[in-house]
């Protein structure tokens, strides 16, 4: 699959020929973006442990980023269009984690 790798070789841009799209990019789009429709079967994506691990990594990263002062995309409603979702996810994630007794830093 090369369609996701149009990075140009010219001009010094990084190029990654013949590699499939990075899994993180696909997960981010397919699990977190796109039109949300409730079908017949209830799939609670927040119940995916893998996903909660993933989200926790994002949360940890946000905290880390804040520490580093690189949090410019936070707080600006235009730049962080999904800020409200994220806060909702954060609080649901904390509830899930405390219910499951998951410690910070657990792997997958």
């Amino acid at each position: 699959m090369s369609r996701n790798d149009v990075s140009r070789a010219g001009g010094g841009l990084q190029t990654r020929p013949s590699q499939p799209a990075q899994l993180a990019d696909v997960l981010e789009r397919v699990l977190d973006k796109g039109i949300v429709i409730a079908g017949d079967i209830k799939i609670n994506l927040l119940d995916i442990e893998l996903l909660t691990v993933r989200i926790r990594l994002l949360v940890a990263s946000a905290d880390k980023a804040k520490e580093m002062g690189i949090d410019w995309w936070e707080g600006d409603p235009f730049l962080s269009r999904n800020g409200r979702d994220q806060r909702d996810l954060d609080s649901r994630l904390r509830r899930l984690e405390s219910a499951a007794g998951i410690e910070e830093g657990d792997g997958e």
Partner: protein
Amino acid sequence: MIEAPAAQAWYVYGVVDATTAAPVDDVRLVEHGALAAVVGQVPLADFAEDVLAERLNDRVWLEAHVRAHEDVLMRLAERATVVPFRFGVIYRELGDVTAMLRQRRDELAAALAHVRGRVELGVKAWADRARVEAALGDAPAGGSGGRAYLERRRTEEERAQRATALMTEIAQGAHERLLAAAVEGVANRPQPRELTGREETMILNGAYLVEDGGTALSELLRTLQDEYAPSGVDFELTGPWPPHNFVEPPEDA
């Protein structure tokens, strides 16, 4: 041993114009008015409630299904305008798919109109902190003794702070310039190192909706690369993607 045919369910990948030509491989279109849902059959057993949690937590299963979802959307997007659905929209009957199209008709038609003739491009900016700091110059002076040591530590700290400020400034400035070359754009949370597996820090994780294949944005990206590489920041372009980031109605709508 002859097994009874497994119960099937309908998995919905997204929505296209009803005028769209024959869909890819083993997916089909379910039309309602000007809209058509892109659906494929999946074994109901895979998504039964008692096994679903286990399946979703099976890394191999999840990756295969998430990639399959994206793959169908990508192949569709090559020939038609598509509104991607989020993972896991499943119906038992085709009639329920039609009912969904009827209920969400206005929202789906508006989303289609918004992304028609446009694609999503991803732009990441990666900062190599060591290069960023080195580019700032004034390496800590040598010398020995307690006073020189303290002086050196102070210089190092100041330089680290300036590097952080510079990285933020570059990411924000690049995003603003990329927005100007796009119809719309969003800066998503940069992915953490645990996910990227890279030494460099991701300081921009942007998605941009562009027209004409994004020629203007690609050119701008080359400019940004030339401009900021000496400061230790490299840019990466991904896509075109189906417009996942640009089909949800605005929160305040």
